[in-house]
């Protein structure tokens, strides 16, 4: 496993170096400020390429960085889930395939630091060893070993697309998907709560929101960026007041605007500094979309997202034409 991993990074670096002449730059991952953090890096030179890494700390979805880079030819390192964002962007004609050189890396899942923090105080961690089934944390008070499965992101536990669905360079052995059909068990559990309990839950969660819009800006499909209706003064949808209503309304709008587009990369929730579980709202929308249109976002480049089109008669939507 470790040998394959090292080998893969060397292959990745070599592949990136070979393409440098054909692109403006390559976006990949480098080591971040501590052993559990990777950070996106712009690769322009061979020396930059030697900083590239790929492991379970490479959590960010680099498809988000493509915003504002129209007209450039860009190399991009993607995991299986990230590739779904690219497909969705291409479906929406927001991205040209020819603009990209894609370095696809089959993925064994990425770490969820929020899960690790529940089990260990990692604020002063000085080393981490991530193997096939374990994560060893080198902490000031000693070594702590956690089962890898316990600290992988939820999306990885149910992942059916560990292998990039689109790539120019596929680097490393393809992985066997671990996840089965999404049962939305988390959502089922939540929806068993009474409306009042659910309301109280969101009230508490949303009241922490500081309106930094990291959720929006980290979302690869939130493509309006600074012309977002959250910032619009005319029409004036949202007030600047830090009330629950405003905070919540934004999240509802975000979820609705992503219905049938969200690939559940989870960047919105991961980016939230206040730990608000906003992915749940998007999963709710996705389950509805799956039920009504049997559609999954970002899988088939040729597909048309259901809310980008319509049929005169939808199988699962009752025809209410008589009411006119």
């Amino acid at each position, binding site marked *: 496993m470790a040998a394959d991993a090292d080998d893969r990074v060397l292959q990745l670096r070599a592949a990136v170096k070979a393409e440098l002449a054909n692109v403006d730059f390559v*976006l990949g991952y480098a080591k*971040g*400020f*501590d052993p559990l*953090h*990777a*950070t*996106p*890096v*712009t690769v*322009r030179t061979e020396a930059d390429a030697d900083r590239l890494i790929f492991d379970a700390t490479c959590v*960010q979805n680099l498809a*988000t*960085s493509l915003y*504002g880079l129209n007209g450039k030819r860009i190399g991009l390192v993607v995991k299986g889930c990230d590739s779904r964002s690219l497909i969705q962007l291409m479906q929406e004609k927001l991205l040209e395939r020819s603009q990209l050189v894609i370095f696809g890396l089959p993925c064994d899942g990425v770490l969820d630091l*929020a899960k690790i*923090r529940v089990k260990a105080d990692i*604020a*002063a*961690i*000085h080393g981490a060893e991530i193997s096939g089934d374990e994560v060893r944390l080198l902490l*000031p008070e000693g070594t702590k070993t956690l089962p890898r499965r316990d600290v992988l992101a939820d999306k990885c536990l149910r992942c059916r697309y560990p292998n990039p669905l689109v790539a120019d360079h596929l680097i490393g052995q393809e992985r066997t998907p671990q996840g089965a059909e999404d049962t939305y068990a988390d959502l089922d559990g939540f929806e068993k709560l009474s409306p009042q309990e659910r309301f109280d839950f969101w009230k*508490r*969660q949303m009241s*922490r929101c*500081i*309106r*930094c*819009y*990291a959720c*929006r*800006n*980290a979302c690869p499909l939130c493509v309006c*960026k*600074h012309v977002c209706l959250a*910032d619009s*003064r005319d029409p*004036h949808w949202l*007030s*600047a*007041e*830090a009330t629950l209503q405003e905070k919540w309304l934004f999240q509802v709008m975000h979820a609705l605007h992503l219905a049938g587009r969200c690939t559940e990369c989870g*960047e919105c929730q*991961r*980016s939230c*500094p*206040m*730990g608000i*579980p906003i992915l749940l709202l998007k999963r709710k929308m996705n389950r509805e979309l799956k039920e009504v249109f049997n559609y999954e976002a970002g899988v088939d480049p040729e597909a048309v997202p259901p809310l980008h089109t319509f049929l005169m008669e939808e199988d699962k939507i009752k025809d209410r034409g008589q009411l006119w």
Partner: protein
Amino acid sequence: MVARFLANSALADTAAAWARDFRLLAPVREGQAVVYRAWAKDMHPFLGRPPTCSAKEALLPQTENLLTYTYRKDQADLTRTEVFVAEPLPPEPTLLLGARPCDARGRKLLDRVFLERGVEDPLYAAKRRNTLFVTVACERMENTCFCHWTGGGPTSEEGSDVLLFAVGADGGGYVAKALTPEGERLLDKLPEASRAAQEELAAKLASPPSQAVPGPAPDLSAAPERFLKLFGNMDFWMDESARCLSCGVCTYLCPACSCFNITDENSGMKGKRLRTWDTCMSALYTLEGSGHNPRVSRAHRLRNRVGHKFCYHPQEFPKDAGAQPEFSCTGCGRCIKSCPVSVDIRRVVLDLMEKGDAS
């Protein structure tokens, strides 16, 4: 002053007593976050980790009223309207429990802007005058901490009214040191710290927390000039900002960032003029009505954030020659810790020092 003892077991009752005299903001755990909440019965203050947000909330809230206005129709001539404007009420006396020394130093940096720059900001000044900080000294440096780079330290007293030092003696609690007369009054009901507790504290202070990850403080005295040297080097700023998402995490969590927006929120014939945190990392921050934007790219905006903290601020508030400049940064590391893409301002500053020297 006498060192007092605040036992862990007495923390909630002491906080409740303070809450009778003050609007008490205390940190509580909520999921992954540690957030300041207004005191409520049965609340459990959590002092074990630095709060996720900085303490500036107490002095510069996310939003506050600058004024309210009401339009009234002239009953004699309905085409005419009159407007009436009212100022907000003065703030309540506030006590903020559980800030860290980096947050308390942030007060001084906010004072620079709101009290010392020129025009005194009356809303800030009113809160500043009646807000007390009961701060918790840090027992260790986290990977994102670098307070010692910017003139602070894990036990820095600057800006606090009371500083609490965690000890294990006497069943566990805090040795409380009053740093201001107001702070002393807060502690007057607490018992004197035992000899054992004081000795434990003295021993701890003698061996300060290790600075393993951020490393020893580099000499940043040339940072302002290095910044200006690299100001026009857009490739440098492009590469430093390539990862940035232009969100507001770094600036909103920063104890020293003070920029704000002013907007009117209308509701029928009346409304409010609000002051709200704003972020220089957003394209909207400098976007003009005409569509012109002097800071069009993330590179321009990151340059401004770093420049403000490590060049413009020290130039505006100069220190004596040879002294470490005062930066508009307390080294709390929140901008690093909570950045979704791990932009590390320490790295940017070190790159400045290195490349600004070579260029």
